């Protein structure tokens, strides 16, 4: 019937069966051959793998990706302890009344499209950063102007000592005027850092090469690639198989696995990675609604804190017992870590006593108050950081033993600020970065202001803390006074517990053996690529 049109003649059918097999074999072989690299050729690009995806090009959304890759620069940098350092601004001056700040730009700085960095371009980027949630919106800025090509002038309504720290945040990064589209949105990333973008494929990939016209020392690493991989096992496996040179965001399980393999030569894979670690200024906190009748009593809050087995949580879920928080701010924040404070304890009997004193009687099914109502709370958390739901589960069980029934509600990170505003929040578990602005004063001022903060106090305020934070923010206090104010703040937070600290964080990175000069930035602002080099095998 259809001899003329017979698409499945025997010959083509046979070929159709053979073709995929041949294609598979042909596809796999070059990959195997490609592993044998020619030693005379330049080394392959530095491959970084991390959990952070590039969600859009706005500086507030993904600016941190580009500042970490050193593609863009901010006006100022921050040292490990938060002190401001020159970056795009060569030097800066503050007027006597603290209301006018003047920044002198580096003379030879150029954008990646060849044009010089002018003050007008900087002003444009800074003005874009004044829209929330870019952090410059926290400063009481009256105007940002460019009196001449190399100077930027910022006028404030009130003194704000944390301004240099704000200008080191990635949301204030400086982009060339050509980066913006006609609608004012960022269309491409043209920065002025030592690397320029060669390929940008959001949300997962960005590739950079050295920018030849950079006015600083030329970095040793010629090309860098970043890939976002959302699972920690994938990142660890990529490090072990040699596919990634730097693997960020290792979870405790992967860390133990890599350490086990390093110790046991029989298990060693092709590449023996080493682990670099740094403690981060990030704390796991329980944010409380102190406006709730049950939590208004400071004894109940203290009981909640005493019932937490922080060492157990740190050991089981973060791999290191020493990460159990003794106070809100970790030791690496230097002067803010108050060594005189009595550490937070795990004492279930003391917790039971405090709850009884606050009027909660222990029944067979948990605590009930004088009116017979049980103590039921809901703790909100999110999955963006995978350890948070597990910590919430551990807390739920520990509080159940104390007689408090807690329900865990895993949702979106936006649920916490929303619950703060509409008052529906009871408890929330989050991982707060207290050096979000490199100077913790700024973050603390936002969290513990008079009306509370989206990620800080709710239904609680302390005049002493508010005044201390205001004084630190507005005036350049002498060291003794600074120390005294900080002690007031930390002491009040430790005794009143508007937020309950649970554990601190340590960042672990797997480093390939062919990479030398690797240092980690505790403020997570930069991968410090310019300091790295290839080690000779």
């Amino acid at each position: 019937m259809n001899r003329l049109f017979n698409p499945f003649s025997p010959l083509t059918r046979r070929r159709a069966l053979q073709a995929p097999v041949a294609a598979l074999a042909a596809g796999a072989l070059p990959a195997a051959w490609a592993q044998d690299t020619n030693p005379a050729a330049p080394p392959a690009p530095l491959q970084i793998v991390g959990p952070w995806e590039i969600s859009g090009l706005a500086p507030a959304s993904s600016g941190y990706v580009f500042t970490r890759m050193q593609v863009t620069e901010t006006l100022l940098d921050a040292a490990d302890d938060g002190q401001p350092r020159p970056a795009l601004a060569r030097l800066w001056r503050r007027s006597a009344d603290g209301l006018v700040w003047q920044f002198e730009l580096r003379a030879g700085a150029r954008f990646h499209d060849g044009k010089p960095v002018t003050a007008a371009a900087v002003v444009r980027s800074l003005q874009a950063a004044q829209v929330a949630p870019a952090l410059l919106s926290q400063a009481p800025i009256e105007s940002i102007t460019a009196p001449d090509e190399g100077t930027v002038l910022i006028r404030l309504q009130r003194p704000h000592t944390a301004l240099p720290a704000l200008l080191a945040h990635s949301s204030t990064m400086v982009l060339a005027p050509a980066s913006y589209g006609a609608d004012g949105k960022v269309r491409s990333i043209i920065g002025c850092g030592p690397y320029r973008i060669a390929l940008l494929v959001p949300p997962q990939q960005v590739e950079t090469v050295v920018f030849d016209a950079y006015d600083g020392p030329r970095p040793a690493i010629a090309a860098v690639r970043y890939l976002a991989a959302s699972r920690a096992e994938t990142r660890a496996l990529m490090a072990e198989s040699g596919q990634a040179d730097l693997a960020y965001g290792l979870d405790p399980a992967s860390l133990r696995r890599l350490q086990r393999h390093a110790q046991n030569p029989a298990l060693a894979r092709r590449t023996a990675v080493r682990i670099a670690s740094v403690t981060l200024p990030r704390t796991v906190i329980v944010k409380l609604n102190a406006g709730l009748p049950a939590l208004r009593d400071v004894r109940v809050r203290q009981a909640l804190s005493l019932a937490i087995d922080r060492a157990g949580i740190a050991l089981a879920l973060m791999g290191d017992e020493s990460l159990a928080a003794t106070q809100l701010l970790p030791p690496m924040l230097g002067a803010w870590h108050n060594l005189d404070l009595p550490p937070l304890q795990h004492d279930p009997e003391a917790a039971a006593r405090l709850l009884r004193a606050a009027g909660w009687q222990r029944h067979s099914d948990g605590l009930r108050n004088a009116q017979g109502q049980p103590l039921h709370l809901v703790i909100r958390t999110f999955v963006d950081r995978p350890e948070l739901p597990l910590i919430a589960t551990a807390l739920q069980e520990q509080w159940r033993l104390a007689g408090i029934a807690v329900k865990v509600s895993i949702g979106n990170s936006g649920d916490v600020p929303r619950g703060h505003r509409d008052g529906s929040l009871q408890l929330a578990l989050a991982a707060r970065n207290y050096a979000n602005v490199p100077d913790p004063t700024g973050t603390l001022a936002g969290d513990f202001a008079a009306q509370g903060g989206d990620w800080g106090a709710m239904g609680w305020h302390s005049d002493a803390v508010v005044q201390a934070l205001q004084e630190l923010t507005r005036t350049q206090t002498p060291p003794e006074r600074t120390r005294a104010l900080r002690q007031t703040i930390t002491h009040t937070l430790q005794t009143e517990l508007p937020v309950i600290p649970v554990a601190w964080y340590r960042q672990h990175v797997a480093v390939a053996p062919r990479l030398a000069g690797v240092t980690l930035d505790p403020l997570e602002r930069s991968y410090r690529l310019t300091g790295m080099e290839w080690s000779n095998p």
Partner: protein
Amino acid sequence: MNPLLSKPWAALLGRRLVQVLAVSLLIGTLCFLMVRALPGDLAMRVAAGRYGYDLVSNAAADAVRAELGLDRPGWLALLHWWRDMATFNLGQSLVSQRSVWHEVTHHLGATLRLSAAALAIAFAVGVPLGVWAGLRPQGWVDKASWLMAVVLRALPPFLLSVLLVLLVAVQWSFLPAGGDESQASLVLPALTLGLGLAAGLARVTRAAMREVVVSPFFEFARTKGLSDWQALVRHGLRNAAVPVTAYLGVQALFLVEGALVVETLFAWPGIGHALVHAVFGRDIPVVQGTALCMGVLFVVFNLLVDAACLALDPRHTQKVAK
């Protein structure tokens, strides 16, 4: 006469066209309604998607709400959406502010590449195995493929992929463990998806082969004097191909969705991963755009499968025109 020019084919084409229109309208409206009905403040979700948990705040949500005009009444937004659909304007993503069309093609294209590779692997591995098992039933190949089918069907894809990565990427340092740089990085995720499919395909091919081998026309071919192999190739395979094609058609669709976990594990920039992010982040335009494209793809794919079945076996016009 070319079966593809015949009347049943024209009727089929017509029906599928109507289906495309109906499906698009239904999906578009349904997605719109559902995403609006979800709990949680839209502006806050979008802000959380854009800025992350360190920076999201009420101030950010207010800025997003003002920027996107999210306090418009629902019915107005629905009318706008219908108008946009009619002009093929899929809008911009609320989170990344890139064009939805660009995002969808990028992600869907990656997933389609992955699915195609998985299908190729399944075809190359499963069909020969199934043919062999069908020709020699109760043999060791038959039993082994049954066991493989059970195990591979029950293993969650993420477990299979981890095992594969451990074996291949780390132990033998053969192939990349993640990313989207080269053709080589396609092999592992495609293998994960393809092996499970190959197991099922082997069983279906085996069943089809059994039917062919016991059928009268096959016996007649042997009686005529053709050898086993010639009879198989000339008469058997084409008849066996119909149920196999239908099965592949159904499974290929599940592949596209089922690739979600594999994409997440291998950092493959696919549509499942993007869709989950979009639903969590309440990125309405991306959700609607993705659903629309996938719906249209579904209809087009069904059309292709019907065409293939029709070309393979023109007798079954009734079945196809169902």
